[in-house]
């Protein structure tokens, strides 16, 4: 049984009217793997995960979860599977604990004592008896993780779990996902942050407008990544630009607002900076713009310009 794929989705298509939200996507996740589905807004990540969880039906293609399909196995497809789509939702008039108890009922009953353990894990033990109505966004997100864990899953499906969290929340959520992954759980995670996926995942599918833009191991992705980029501000940008002209490995352009954008292999950029100093041009700012993988992500998903403006 263990060599069976946790997720085996083949040529899956889902259209909403004229929008092909998911267009012939094939994704295979082996047991124990931590798999990332990466893509900008509207790429079709959520739509794919909804099909996996049986919330919507694919127009064509097959989705197998541990060898089971919705058409053949119905709700049994979700045995051993848990997770949440977008932000998790609960009944505001019930307490966190009551919500979990009720969902446990629908799972066939949670093991006694399990609930308290899990509330401890997600750091909600102190607030479990408050109504969810009064929960913060981050607390709801953690309650969503708790609701998934009481199913004692083998496959955890998380749709942008860190979305909307503050930096500390993001850090904690990533740490939690990592711990879960280390414990042998298969994790299928969607994200629009390359660093999140890079940090946690073994393999990744990058989606763009419903299609696969890249598919493979994070290591492969790194190999394809372009040179790192830096934002540079100097006392004399015009001369700095001229200096860059003398170094073939370095490309410098004027940034849209002010300063320069410099790309090139790390060594070349270092010697460029040394040259600037030698020429009496002083640096006022020198910051990496985005990691090479992020750069690659924007190149692959075709949204570099727009996102640069947003960022």
């Amino acid at each position: 049984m263990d060599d069976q794929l946790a997720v085996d989705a083949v040529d899956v298509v889902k259209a909403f009217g004229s929008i092909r939200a998911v267009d012939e996507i094939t994704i295979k996740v082996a047991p124990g793997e931590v798999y990332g589905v990466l893509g900008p807004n509207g790429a079709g990540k959520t739509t794919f995960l909804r099909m996996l969880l049986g919330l919507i039906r694919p127009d064509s293609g097959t989705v197998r979860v541990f060898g089971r399909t919705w058409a053949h196995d119905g709700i049994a497809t979700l045995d051993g599977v848990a997770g949440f789509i977008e932000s998790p939702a609960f009944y505001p008039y019930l307490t966190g604990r009551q919500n979990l108890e009720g969902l446990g009922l629908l799972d066939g009953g949670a093991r006694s004592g399990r609930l308290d353990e899990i509330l401890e894990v997600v750091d909600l033990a102190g607030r479990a008896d408050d109504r969810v109505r009064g929960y913060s966004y981050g607390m709801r997100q953690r309650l969503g993780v708790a609701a998934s864990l009481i199913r004692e899953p083998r496959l955890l499906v998380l749709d942008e779990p860190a979305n909307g969290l503050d930096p500390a929340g993001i850090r904690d959520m990533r740490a939690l996902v990592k711990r879960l992954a280390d414990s042998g759980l298969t994790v299928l995670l969607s994200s629009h942050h390359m660093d999140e996926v890079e940090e946690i995942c073994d393999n990744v599918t990058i989606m763009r407008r419903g299609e696969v833009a890249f598919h493979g191991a994070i290591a492969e992705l790194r190999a394809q990544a372009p040179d790192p980029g830096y934002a540079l501000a100097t006392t004399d940008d015009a001369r700095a630009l001229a200096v860059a002209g003398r170094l073939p490995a370095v490309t410098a352009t004027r940034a849209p607002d002010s300063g320069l954008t410099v790309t090139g292999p790390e060594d070349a950029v270092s010697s460029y900076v040394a040259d600037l100093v030698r020429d009496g041009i002083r640096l006022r700012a020198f910051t990496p713009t985005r990691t090479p993988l992020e750069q690659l992500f924007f190149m692959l998903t075709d949204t570099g310009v727009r996102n640069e403006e947003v960022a």
Partner: protein
Amino acid sequence: MTATDVLTGRPTQAAPVLGSRPGLGAALRWETRKLRAQLRTKALLIGAVLVPIAVVVIVHSQPRPPKDTLFGRFATDNGFAMALLVLGFAAQWVLPLLTSIVAGDIFASEDQHGTWKTVLTRSTSRSTLFWGKSLVSIGFALLALLVLAAATIAASVLIVGHQPLTGLSGQTIQPQSAVTLVVASWACMALPMIGFTCLAILFSVWSRNVAVGIAAPVVIGLVMQLVGALGGIESLRPYLLTTPFEAWHGLLAEPRFTGPLLDGVITSAGWSVVCLVAAYLVLRRRDITGG
């Protein structure tokens, strides 16, 4: 890591197969729990006790009885007539409203809270959840009817009295059989009330909107009554879901006639089945994209 993982609490490579699959019982327990936790459920049931008592007290204290309504003429000095007067009034819109406040909400509130995705990704199927919600709504409708009937009859008899009742054909009905007939008349409301429950379920599923789920059955009930009261459409009357609300009249005539009661059973059952099946199909086929 040990063989049993701390976080997931199970051997990490165990086969993902459930020991016991939750059935309808789990869905019923869950829906009942949610209903009990909601303020509106308690408010409705308390209202079903207090409002009829208040109505009985107010009507009883009027110097002149409400002559132009069925049994109104005797209501101020006969408890049984009072209970039937309240019944006639309740059937107009109170009963449909009482049930749709729960049934019209029970599906649409999952849309409102975005919780479809939460419950549909557990181990209970859509169908089981559907029947769980539907049965709990029907159960609530019957409970509300029972409470309303009990409060009305008890208040009427205790406040106004249990004098012999004058029937619809002018016959005198002794208190013992009057009690039975009044209880039976109220019991006749059960089936059409289930019909309205199913109508509310359909609107709740189809509109995904709590307000529509609650208001539409009440409005439709009022329209049906209006249509039923118009002349010249006799052929339509037996099919209206409000007609069974009047079937109890035959019980208080001499000789008794039960034809409308039987028709009412068929009409109510027909509406219930059609609405439930339609609601079931809509929910089964639906893509859960919201929330």
